[in-house]
């Protein structure tokens, strides 16, 4: 199914090596994959496995040591910083773990910010931002400042801000990392719904297997290498029947993760 779609991101032979003193840290150690239009992909791995490094490079925030990243037909690794900024402005939405909203602006203004950078007129960008806020279910919170909203609401604003420019692709680095599990679930469901309805492409990084299960495809990464790409859509067909099972499974997973994190 996905193989027939249009390729939005194609990564070939990607390496990122950090030098720390005399030692080399291979944050990414030869990565190849493609992501198709309208897909919701999750990159899962333990802390330090290189997820953020990969995402930052896809978003053009860092330069790869070696390899190719082609997004929407353009080579990211060949762009200057200025060109990368321009590329992000036009093609990329970004959702942050710590929301990163502007404290002095209310919800609409925050959502409209990327449109401001595009040089769109105030009336127009406010209208568009307002529509997107309706979409993420914040109709009543348009003129609330970040400090007047809960974490979940703030992240919805963050999602709206990523959506507002109608980007080719949205990146999210641990988007629910600062939220409790219930709110995380709500936000994940929102993102899932929007990706489906808006036919957006979303690449999300998480260390949580359960959250990853909201995605269409899951990339498992260990020590800078993608070890498994799991197609979740096949699993999901039986999901409805096994709802209770999955609830139990989730609990197990959470305890498992807690153990892992405690171990680190």
């Amino acid at each position, binding site marked *: 199914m996905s193989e027939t779609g249009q390729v939005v991101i194609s990564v070939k032979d990607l390496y990122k090596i950090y030098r720390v003193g005399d030692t080399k840290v291979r944050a990414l150690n030869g990565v190849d994959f493609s992501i198709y239009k309208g897909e919701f992909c999750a990159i899962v791995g333990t802390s330090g496995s290189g997820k953020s490094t990969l995402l*930052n490079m896809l978003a053009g925030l860092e330069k790869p040591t070696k390899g190719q990243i082609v997004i929407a037909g353009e080579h990211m690794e060949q762009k200057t910083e200025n060109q990368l900024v321009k*590329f*992000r*402005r*036009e093609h*990329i939405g970004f959702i942050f773990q710590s929301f990163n909203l502007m404290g002095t602006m209310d919800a609409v203004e925050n959502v409209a910010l990327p449109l*401001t950078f595009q040089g769109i007129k*105030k009336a127009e960008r406010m209208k568009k931002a307002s529509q997107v806020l309706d979409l993420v279910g914040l109709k009543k919170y348009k003129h609330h400042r970040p400090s007047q909203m809960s974490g979940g609401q703030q992240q919805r604003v963050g999602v709206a801000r990523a959506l507002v420019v109608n980007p080719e692709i949205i990146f999210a680095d641990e988007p629910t990392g600062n939220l409790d599990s219930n709110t995380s679930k709500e936000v994940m469901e929102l993102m899932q719904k929007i990706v489906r309805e808006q036919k957006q492409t979303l690449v999300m990084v998480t260390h949580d297997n359960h959250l990853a299960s909201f995605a269409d495809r899951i990339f498992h990464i260990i020590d800078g290498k993608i070890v498994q790409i799991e197609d979740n859509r096949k699993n999901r067909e039986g999901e409805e029947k096994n709802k209770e099972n999955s609830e139990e499974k989730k609990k197990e997973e959470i305890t498992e993760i807690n153990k892992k994190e405690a171990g680190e």
Partner: protein
Amino acid sequence: MRFWDLLRMSSSSLWKRKVRTVLTVLGVVIGTASIVVMISLGLGLNRSTMEQMESYGSLTTIEVNEGSGSSMSFAGGGMAIMTTASSGDEDVKRLDDELVEALKQIPHVKMVSPTLRTSVIIKSGVYEGQVSVTGMEPEYMQSLGIEVGQGELPVGKNDLEFFYGNQVLMDFYNSKTQRYPYYETGELPDIDLMNSPLFVIFDTNAYWSSQSSGEEGIDGVTPQPPKKYMIKTSGIAAGGPEEWNQHSYSVYCDIEQLKTTLKRIFKNKAIPGQPTTKVGKPYKEIFYNQILVDVDDIDYVAEVQTQINNMGYQTYSNAEWVESTQQQYSNIQAMLGGIGAVALLVAAIGITNTMMMSIYERTKEIGVMKVLGCDMRNIQSLFLIEAAYIGLIGGLIGIGVSYGISAIINRAVHASGNEMNLSYIPGWLVIAAIIFAILIGMIAGYFPSRRAMKLSPLAAIRNE
């Protein structure tokens, strides 16, 4: 980004940090105000002295006085100063017709105008006043630019006629009561200078002697009151009793007619104010009190002046004074401006510091903006505009403060009885100061703004 949005974002981020902004602006206010006030002082001084100099007369004129050794005093402004020349020192270089001719031969000399002053007493009815009459050549008199109120200048008349300044009557007193009506009541004595008969006493020495009756005269003979002469009035200068100009207290007449009149009246007696020989005899000739030499260009004034000096005469010209005062004032201005510049430099460092602090604080915000696709140049502009705003606000307030300080200075100067405006802020200074303040802000903000532009967007991703 639209320019308007840049402006809005910059100003809102300044607004967000009000206290710090106010403190930084304060530095610029102090810097701008000190520069503007300093320059305004220089300008005010310069302007009022230039005005003063112009009121003192032409800047291309050289005054020639007689050579050293003698102290010939004139009766000036109606005061009775009767010191005659020191016992005839033959070496004294006197101002005579021969000298007038010689001066005319000097290159670049346009006009040579001898003046002859004598002190006379004028009586009209109960009033009398002692005034100094200045004889000058008609050509020169016409070149003075005297505004005639009534009548005309005493030019081309058959007999000696006087032209009165508009404030001459101030010094007339009632000869019975010895009171000055103007200084007591503020009103001039009601003398119609044009039409009522005016009697002029030239031999003032004899007049004073005859006034103090009972005492013996110089020659041991009881003095006779001197003869009075009726001198017609040719005209009066324009202006009321309050409107001073350099001709206000003067009485002018034709120099040749004054000479002949004096010769006729005094015959071989000594004329008051004229030098005498060693044995106290008067000279045959009447010497001038002063010769004014007009030079065709201010650039040659110094040259001509030296030449006349070398001939043994004392000279004086405004050009010297103008040059040295201008030099002095530009020195003062440079110094005062320098103090202001240092103040602004400190303010600029303040701006840089504030901007740097703000950038450290906003590292994350800047990173987010870069991740969201804000152009690097826009980021730089945001910070430059912020710095420019600080400069602009500081400049505007600084101008306001300067006007305040300037008004206070001028009021203090006026209170001390001086009419001049010591501090003067022209329009160009206002505009220049504001532009300068903005520029200072932007220069101070340039380095921080580049730094902001180059910040890594990864700062936004990292979780602290």
